[in-house]
């Protein structure tokens, strides 16, 4: 009897994950709007979020790994990826130490700077010699249009 209950429980869990996967995939694929965009700033062409807030990379990060937590992340809030977001070309998603998901460009995790309040603000560029604006390189500029789907 116990075995039957356990087996049905297991198959229910398995079925629900299959159902969820089937449901998630099309919804992610149909969402064509990007979480980022290229924008002109006083420091040249940069990447921003959809509202125009500047994005930065951190020289102390390594490819696919954020080393900015705690007080660092208070000053430089991570550019979070929504649940179900799908990677695209140079734009990938990295897992943070707290389990949350963060967008990365060419492997480098992306951040906001808390001092930037409005679109076009680029106060974080060059701070400490370790923070740089995220800029469209020629290769990554083409990324949004070269979808593999």
């Amino acid at each position: 009897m116990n075995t039957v209950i356990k087996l049905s429980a297991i198959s229910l869990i398995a079925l629900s994950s299959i159902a969820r996967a089937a449901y998630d995939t099309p919804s992610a694929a149909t969402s064509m709007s990007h979480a980022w965009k290229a924008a002109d700033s006083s420091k040249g062409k940069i990447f921003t979020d959809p509202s125009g807030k500047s994005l930065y990379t951190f020289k102390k990060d390594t490819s696919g790994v954020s080393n900015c937590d705690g007080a660092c992340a208070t000053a430089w809030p991570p550019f979070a990826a929504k649940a179900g977001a799908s990677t695209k070309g140079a734009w990938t998603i990295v897992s943070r130490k707290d389990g949350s998901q963060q967008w990365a460009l060419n492997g480098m995790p992306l951040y906001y700077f808390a001092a930037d309040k409005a679109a076009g603000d680029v106060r974080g560029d060059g701070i400490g010699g370790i923070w740089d604006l995220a800029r469209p390189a020629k290769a990554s500029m083409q990324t949004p249009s070269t979808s593999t789907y």
Partner: protein
Amino acid sequence: MKKVNQIIAGVLLSVSFCSVALATAWSVADTGAGRVFAGEKGLSLYTFRKDTPNLSNCYDDCATAWPPFLAKADAKATGAWTLVKRNDGSMQWALKGMPLYYWVGDSAQGDTTGNGVGGVWDLARP
């Protein structure tokens, strides 16, 4: 003539004496966010809610983003303005026991871009 010179010298002396006596490491500045305390170059000063009276809890990454408002070697506490010792032995100005900091996002007098960051940073106000 000699008397006039003496008077002028006296006035000059008292003026220079006053300016020495009144020189403080901080000033009061009007900003878009209201009246605040400012340190060198008129840069706004902040307090950190995770600090406790007379103790800074902001080091490493935190102090990179929020550089402490350090006191000169001969600085002396006055009124609500006291000195707090940091882990590295340096002395940091504190207002009513709360250590004071700059914020790397501010670059000019009147900038207050650190106010409210993370819900734990506040402008130091008179």
